[in-house]
């Protein structure tokens, strides 16, 4: 007998897994389209200035080229929707790499070649592309992403810090990071009878539909956006971006379907990136490590087009106790692309800074860094002054310490040696908000006893489709094999983006309500019979989500790691990375583990490898491909383990989930850099921890033998 309940919490492979690995799953530019043409985006070769002339003739002379769109001839877009998407409308160049033309041709090779032949002359102006704490253009924004106040103050930080027995005052720097999903931003666009249909790679096709409707001055129903399979986004596809707009413009211009995919090189900038940050953290504590004063000042950059301020110091507002508190954000408009969401915007760089400062405080107090965090675990939210709906940071730290074997750790830095390797361990805490957005969903019962659930959720590879299918089966009270789920199409009931770790919480909320509604309806049906055309219930959670009390809701985690640093070369390897998380209910352990391990890996990559290397003369990142922008590989780490604690929090959402997409990256980098310090005695406060930084420190300190360790 098959159990009718209990799909949630069980391992299940991704429903579309086989389609993906066999190539049957279609991505945005893989749909067969008759009469299709190919678009190729042309980036600006100036950093700031104006286009004074576009000579498309050499490109148009190439056989197979259909058109070259630029600001002088492209179809008009609605102004005021989004400055970053007001593409090919004006001659102004705001940053190097901004798309200033699109070539459309009969083949992708011809389009690429023709793009090279488009001659553009610029009137250039002096530019400013380097973030610095001394930049005269720094200002306090009205709000930081998405809508937090820029500054907060509670108590008297200056007095509290001055009176503290132990003080840490450290500045941490992070470089630009680039999202780099496997599938680039890519679109197939076609117009038919005044309607626009796009197959687009994005994290939420309802918002993309809305933006396209505004830009092209169409009723929303005249735009359909399909994103059935998406090869990742890491936040960069959380909103309509250049590719979909350029493809739609080009398709309108040539009156044929257009496929346009950005190159890997073109993903470094125009689609958003994580801003570099400069973060000063001050912690004042008593000799026992109890924090009295905490201040986090975060500096980041935005573009001249749109203000986007990474909320790096927001993490500090709720993480650890301390009576006197201050957080600030300053931002500067540079001649650079607009930064955007990248996995845990705000929390990721913010936690790197705060958790690193906590490690420095532990060292200064002679206290174990796990114990320091436990001592400073607040009972109510330090700023909101309200109890957390659930807060299991201490449980994560304790469980992680037990699993990792932390207990007998010698805190002395730079004294453990295994052959050529200096060995160290590190720990960091993590938290990420558990939020939800409104969504709509529909559930249909068919006479044969099967069900279909529809919601415009987006599965960007996370397993969202599978998780919602499990949730739906339980909500309907039937085995999963009687349920079909449809996602990824703006014709389905509207839902928000796969982002902010809100996907499963928001979407399952709507799915559950739709399924509950359907069960009610079926109970009322005469004789329980389902008519031939089925029974459908469609719901929206807008009112329910709006009515939710504004309580501090967070997921928590703790990272533990071991690193090895080659004493002669400064090379860093990670034998072990272990994370324990408390993130509410876990719907599908298979895909949950994948999300957590992915986040932790990305955090390790941030600590050790990733860095957009800016050339200020050009104002772009010179290492703009996968050969030069290094992302951690399997050989860099031996073992990654992710665990989670059972957690029931009735104050979240009907599924009881907190979201897992981001918590894994938060804090991971600080655990690694703290372990590097434990191994070598060297504190690297500007990421990534490259071998040259460790080599230079060692050279200054008299070589690898400086701690009295025999070579």
């Amino acid at each position, binding site marked *: 007998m098959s159990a009718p309940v209990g799909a949630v919490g069980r391992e299940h492979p991704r429903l579309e897994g086989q389609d993906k690995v066999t190539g049957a799953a279609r991505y945005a530019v893989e749909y067969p389209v008759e009469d299709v043409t190919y678009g190729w985006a042309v980036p600006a070769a100036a950093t700031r200035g104006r286009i004074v002339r576009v000579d498309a003739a050499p490109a148009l002379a190439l056989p197979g080229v259909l058109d070259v769109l630029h600001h002088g001839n492209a179809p008009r877009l609605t102004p005021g929707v989004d400055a970053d998407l007001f593409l090919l409308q004006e001659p102004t160049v705001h940053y190097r790499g901004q798309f200033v033309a699109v070539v459309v041709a009969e083949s992708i090779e011809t389009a690429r070649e023709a793009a090279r032949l488009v001659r553009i002359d610029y009137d250039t102006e002096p530019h400013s592309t380097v973030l610095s704490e001394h930049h005269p253009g720094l200002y306090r924004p009205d709000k930081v992403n998405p809508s937090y106040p820029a500054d907060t103050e509670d108590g008297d930080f200056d007095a509290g810090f001055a009176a503290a027995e132990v003080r840490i005052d450290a500045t941490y720097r992070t470089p630009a990071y680039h999202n780099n999903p496997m599938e680039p931003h890519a679109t197939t666009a076609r117009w038919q009878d005044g309607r626009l249909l796009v197959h687009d790679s994005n994290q939420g096709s309802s918002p993309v539909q809305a933006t396209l409707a505004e830009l092209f001055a169409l009723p929303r129903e005249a735009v359909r956006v399909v994103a059935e399979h998406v090869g990742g986004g890491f936040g960069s596809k959380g909103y309509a971006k250049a590719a979909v707009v350029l493809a739609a413009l080009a398709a309108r211009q040539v009156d044929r379907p257009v496929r346009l995919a950005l190159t890997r090189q073109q993903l470094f900038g125009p689609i958003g990136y994580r801003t570099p940050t400069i973060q000063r953290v001050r912690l004042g504590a008593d000799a026992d490590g109890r924090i009295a004063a905490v201040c986090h000042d975060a500096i980041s950059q935005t573009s001249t087009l749109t203000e986007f301020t990474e909320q790096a110091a927001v993490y500090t507002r709720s993480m650890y106790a301390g009576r006197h508190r201050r957080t600030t954000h300053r931002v500067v408009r540079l001649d650079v692309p607009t930064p955007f969401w990248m996995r845990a915007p705000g929390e990721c760089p913010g936690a790197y800074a705060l958790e690193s400062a906590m490690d420095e405080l532990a060292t200064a107090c002679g206290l174990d860094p796990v114990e320091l965090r436990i001592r400073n675990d607040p009972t109510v939210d330090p700023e909101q002054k309200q109890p957390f709906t659930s807060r299991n940071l201490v449980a994560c730290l304790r469980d992680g310490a037990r699993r990792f074997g932390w207990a007998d750790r010698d805190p002395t830095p730079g004294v453990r040696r295994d052959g050529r390797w200096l060995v160290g361990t590190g720990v960091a805490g993590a938290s990420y908000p558990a939020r939800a957005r409104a969504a709509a969903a529909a559930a249909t019962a068919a006479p044969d006893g099967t069900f279909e659930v529809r919601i415009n959720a987006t599965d960007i590879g996370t397993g969202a489709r599978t998780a919602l299918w499990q949730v739906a089966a339980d909500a309907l009270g039937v085995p999963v094999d009687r349920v079909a789920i449809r996602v990824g199409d703006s014709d389905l009931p509207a839902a928000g983006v796969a982002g902010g770790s809100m996907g499963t919480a928001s979407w399952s909320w709507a799915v559950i309500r739709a399924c509950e509604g359907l069960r009610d309806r079926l109970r009322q049906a005469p004789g329980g019979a389902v008519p031939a055309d089925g029974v459908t219930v469609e719901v929206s959670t807008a009112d329910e989500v709006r009515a939710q009390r504004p309580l501090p809701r967070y997921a928590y985690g703790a990272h533990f790691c071991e690193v090895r640093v080659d004493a002669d070369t400064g090379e860093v390897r990670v034998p072990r990375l272990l994370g324990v998380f408390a993130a509410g209910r876990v719907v599908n352990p298979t895909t949950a583990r994948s999300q957590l391990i992915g986040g932790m890996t990305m955090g390790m990559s941030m600590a050790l490898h990733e860095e957009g290397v800016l050339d200020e003369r050009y104002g772009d990142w010179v290492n703009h491909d996968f050969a030069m922008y290094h992302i951690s*590989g*399997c050989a860099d780490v031996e073992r990654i383990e992710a665990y989670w604690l059972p957690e029931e929090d009735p104050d979240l959402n009907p599924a009881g989930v907190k979201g897992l997409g981001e918590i894994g990256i938060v804090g991971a980098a600080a655990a690694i850099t703290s372990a590097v310090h434990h191994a070598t005695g060297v504190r690297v406060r500007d990421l990534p921890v490259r*071998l040259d930084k460790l*080599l230079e420190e060692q050279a200054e300190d008299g070589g690898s033998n400086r701690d009295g360790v025999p070579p």
Partner: protein
Amino acid sequence: MRAFRYHRPADVTEAVALLDADPEAAYLGGGTNLVDLMKLGVQRPGLLVDVTGLPLDTVEPGPDGGLRIGATVRNSDLAARPLVRRDYPLLARALLDAASGQVRNMATTGGNLLQRTRCAYFQDTAKACNKREPGTGCAALHGQNRELAILGWSERCVATHPSDLAVALVALDAVAEVREPDGPRDVRLTELHRTPGHHPERETTLPRGALITAVRVPPLPFARRSTYLKVRDRAAFAFAVGSVAAALDLDGDVVRDVRLAYGAVAHRPWRAYRAEELLRGRPITAELAAQAADAELAAARPLRHNGFKVPLIRNLTVRALTGLAGSVRP
């Protein structure tokens, strides 16, 4: 990318004649570098002459020891040869530390030696590069140059040669068998690659159209005690930021002979003759190895971001030589 013609020649003579006849023709080996550069618009050949079908894909022992490696032998095949692993461990190591499994399955011996620099400015047609477009300047000289040269560079070019294999072959005094329009010729590996000087666009001493058909590795019994140490920014699939190829011949603890070459420090694989000279005839110690490296690196002129390569190469030299010395002790 530019539309191109593609041809598979029947033999070496036809291949060389095709290149000789067409100034826009280029040889295609595994394509692991050229095809990327074609997409980027850095190289724009009108005709690709695919040499991978030529009968140059065997590895044979030489008449009196040594090896003869056909130019189209794939990197992964060469690394797997028992003869290579036993007699020339530094070759196998250099091959296996390079690129990824997939790239090694495609890349050929000849193509590996003739691959282009991975200098970021060379690969970006929107930036100044004397190697790509002579006379436009070198954006790397005062740009982001952490990965670039410390030895033998010129104001015109600070690029490094990216091959690991070439460093090992230079240490071994290998010889390239080359077919030119006028006939065959031998070119010593130590003389194959150039320093940039005034003409960074000329990377090798080969005339246009020359085809490497094989690489001969002379017999060197003590190469069984050899190693290749490569340091890179991540543990796999990354170019070296510094590497050392070394082979050591000891009489007791006295250096009877030694081979030492450095990678990722110059426009060519860097044979460390000065260090070798200092080492010969002296008892091997860590101090001597460091002195030898210092003697070789005395000529180093680090750029703004790559000063770390000097201590890195010194440390690698010490590790390589003391490691090899240790491995011959009972």
